């Protein structure tokens, strides 16, 4: 069954390295037996050690990937370039550009294919001296040696292409965000197992994560997914894409033509034209975010073992994300403005550390009922299932919230209104901004007790963050001139998230919280809980879950 037999490698790498490799008797595998007593990790699967190909082809020799790696390179590059290609297509002369003739396309594809083949030829991997050694590159030889004790985990996953050929992709996750991370994009499962065995790290794959039966698995139902997608409203990116396309349409059909068209159809004026334009743009953006969310979260499942969370998601390409618990810095529950009325929220974790997907803000559940949250947190993130005393901004802060919301909105609205002569826009925006200012004021809260703290704030979506004191990177208390006049202050907490950090801030609290927060976080640790509190947060109710599907 091993593909390895069909491509025994004589790599094009410098001869010296080959010799070195040949001289070394694969030391890692020799000191390791399948029944190694040290290896008592709970979720380790015993099934793989049997069909390891150690006997046939030593993994200490430089080896190439499966030739399918050529194709995975081509597809990956195409996918990375898809947005530039679309932009060039729409912003350039579209069909007239030489890039988009059959000649141009086949030229691009053959360049990609040749690059892929060269990359495949020059890419070798081996396990030697307790290191995974990857060498690649045509002109610049890149050597990435990952020592065993730096490896946090090995992720094994497969995209559609790998599945077609019965292969896997192997990702090496290392501790610390700055250290190297290695990827082998197409090898046989047995080679992957041999690597894992030689390096004595546990493999994480779907089978293993779901063997664990003592913990529940959370999956998203079709209905829930559709609801999540239709309320996603990730308008920022969607609108900008729609904007470019609309601008392009403008070049094909001039504004006058469109106006003529509209006038003959519905007898519209310029204002009506713009309203229709905006409505269409919003609709297109909504559809785009709908399909984006569907693609991203279909088949979402969240499982765990004693040490880490494990996420699988994606329609065409399955993504696997592993988040060790000790890397989680904070849990963020976001109630989008379209979702909050229905009692739904999205749950994120902030995590420090490695990987493209694992090392920053990660969605741990796309859509959950607020009343299911307590259960969810106690199942999956027990350290963050807390109820903490907190305070809300005092009444005199109301005006500050209003000013901060209404003034920028009014400035923007006045400019737009003046430019388009839509003077009715000003009162509309004034009222809308006033309402948002009010809910911002109403929803703000912050508090702590002993080891945990929380913050709740709103821009448009209401966000509730729960964090642990020992995970905080710094605490700041700020007060600007206006705040000082009213004896108010803001509290800012920074936690690690990916390679940088995430900041959470609650504005316009009473000045007394300054000393309480500083006393709580300071080394002296003089304050355990706030002196006077206005309630307990986060205020989710505890009810039975309807979507838990135990495995």
């Amino acid at each position, binding site marked *: 069954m091993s593909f390895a037999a069909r491509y025994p490698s004589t790599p094009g790498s410098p001869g010296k390295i080959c010799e070195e490799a040949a001289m070394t008797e694969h030391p890692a595998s020799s000191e390791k037996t399948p029944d190694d007593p040290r290896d008592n990790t709970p979720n380790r699967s015993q099934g793989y050690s049997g069909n390891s190909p150690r006997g046939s082809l030593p993994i200490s020799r430089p080896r190439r990937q499966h030739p399918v790696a050529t194709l995975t390179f081509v597809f990956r590059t195409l996918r990375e370039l898809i947005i530039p290609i679309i932009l060039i297509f729409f912003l350039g002369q579209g069909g007239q550009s030489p890039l988009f003739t059959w000649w141009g396309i086949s030229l691009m594809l053959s360049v990609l294919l040749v690059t892929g083949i060269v990359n495949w030829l020059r890419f070798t991997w081996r396990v030697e001296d307790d290191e995974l050694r990857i060498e690649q590159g045509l002109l610049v030889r890149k050597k990435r040696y990952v020592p065993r004790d730096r490896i946090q985990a090995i992720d094994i996953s497969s995209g559609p292409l790998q599945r077609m050929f019965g292969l896997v992709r192997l990702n090496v996750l290392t501790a610390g965000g700055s250290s190297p991370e290695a990827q082998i994009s197409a090898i046989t499962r047995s080679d992957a197992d041999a690597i894992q065995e030689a390096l004595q790290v546990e493999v994480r794959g779907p089978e293993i994560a779901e063997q664990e039966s003592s913990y529940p698995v959370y999956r998203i139902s079709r209905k829930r997914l559709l609801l999540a997608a239709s309320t996603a409203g990730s308008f920022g990116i969607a609108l900008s894409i729609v904007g470019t396309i609309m601008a392009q349409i403008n070049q094909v059909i001039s504004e006058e033509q469109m106006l003529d068209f509209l006038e003959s159809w519905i007898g519209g004026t310029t204002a009506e034209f713009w309203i229709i334009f905006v409505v269409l743009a919003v609709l297109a953006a909504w559809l785009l975010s709908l399909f984006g969310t569907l693609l991203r979260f279909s088949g979402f499942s969240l499982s765990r073992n004693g040490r880490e969370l494990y996420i699988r998601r994606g329609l065409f390409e399955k993504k696997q994300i592993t988040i060790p618990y000790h890397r989680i810095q904070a849990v963020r529950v976001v109630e989008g403005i379209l979702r909050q009325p229905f009692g739904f929220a999205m749950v994120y974790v902030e995590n420090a550390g490695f990987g493209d997907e694992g090392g920053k803000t990660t969605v741990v559940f796309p859509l959950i009922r607020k009343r299911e949250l307590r259960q969810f947190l106690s199942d999956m993130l027990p350290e963050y299932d807390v109820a903490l005393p907190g305070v809300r901004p005092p009444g005199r802060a109301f005006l500050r919230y209003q000013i901060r919301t209404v003034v920028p909105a009014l400035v923007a609205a006045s400019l737009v209104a003046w430019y388009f002569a839509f003077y009715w826009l000003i009162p509309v925006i004034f009222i809308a901004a006033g309402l948002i200012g009010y809910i911002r004021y109403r929803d703000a809260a912050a508090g702590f007790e002993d080891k945990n703290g929380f913050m709740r704030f709103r821009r448009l979506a209401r966000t509730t963050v729960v964090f642990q004191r020992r995970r905080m*990177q*710094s605490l700041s208390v700020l007060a600007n001139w206006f705040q000082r006049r009213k004896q108010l202050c803001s509290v800012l907490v920074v936690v690690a998230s990916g390679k*940088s950090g995430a900041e959470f801030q609650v504005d316009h609290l009473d000045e007394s919280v*300054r000393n309480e927060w500083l006393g709580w976080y300071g080394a002296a640790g003089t304050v355990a809980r706030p002196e006077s509190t206005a309630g307990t947060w986060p205020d989710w109710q505890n009810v039975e879950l309807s979507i838990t599907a135990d495995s």
Partner: protein
Amino acid sequence: MNDQHNQKPESQQDSPDRESRQDKPVDKEKAAESAEPAEHAESMEDAKSSRAEELRDEHGHRYLSHEAVNAWRISGALGSLFYWLIPLGYGALSMSGDLWPEWPAYVLGVIFLGFTVLEATVIPWIRWKRWRYHVDRNEIDLRRGLFVVTRTLIPIKRVQHVDTRQGPVYRQFGLASVTVTTAGDMHEIPALSEPVADELRSKISEYARIAREDL
């Protein structure tokens, strides 16, 4: 902490007077305010700057080098020239067509001129007066801010690395800043005289090493 708060309006009120007396030795006032009055050698710049850093406020927190005021005057004034692009750009726009009136260019020009003058005179002085820092085995405590008064606590355990930095202006004044990086953010203690900055950097990194070993 509250004391710091109450201090603000006062220092804002008397800062203009101070500004006029700026050329005269400033040490006198500073020393009078601080807990530990030191004797001065008014003529010597060096002595002045090193003494400023020895001063402690009522919490025992340190001040920055007094050279900071002059260094910030230069860097602040130069930096504020950048904002002149706004009135200049607008001016160019209003010249080119009839659509834009000219008067906002003058209004903006006056505002930005005022801003540059302030940056070259009072603002650095107030900023210096407000800046305090304290470092011990457990944490770094920073107090600062002109319009937004900020206090930050960084546990020593969270410090990933410490650097000293020196730009061209700081080099001219023999100053350096110390930057402290955590896993989530970066903090700067600006404008310390070079030896003080070096000492502080090695002190923080030593404390951080000990704190990590204790973990």
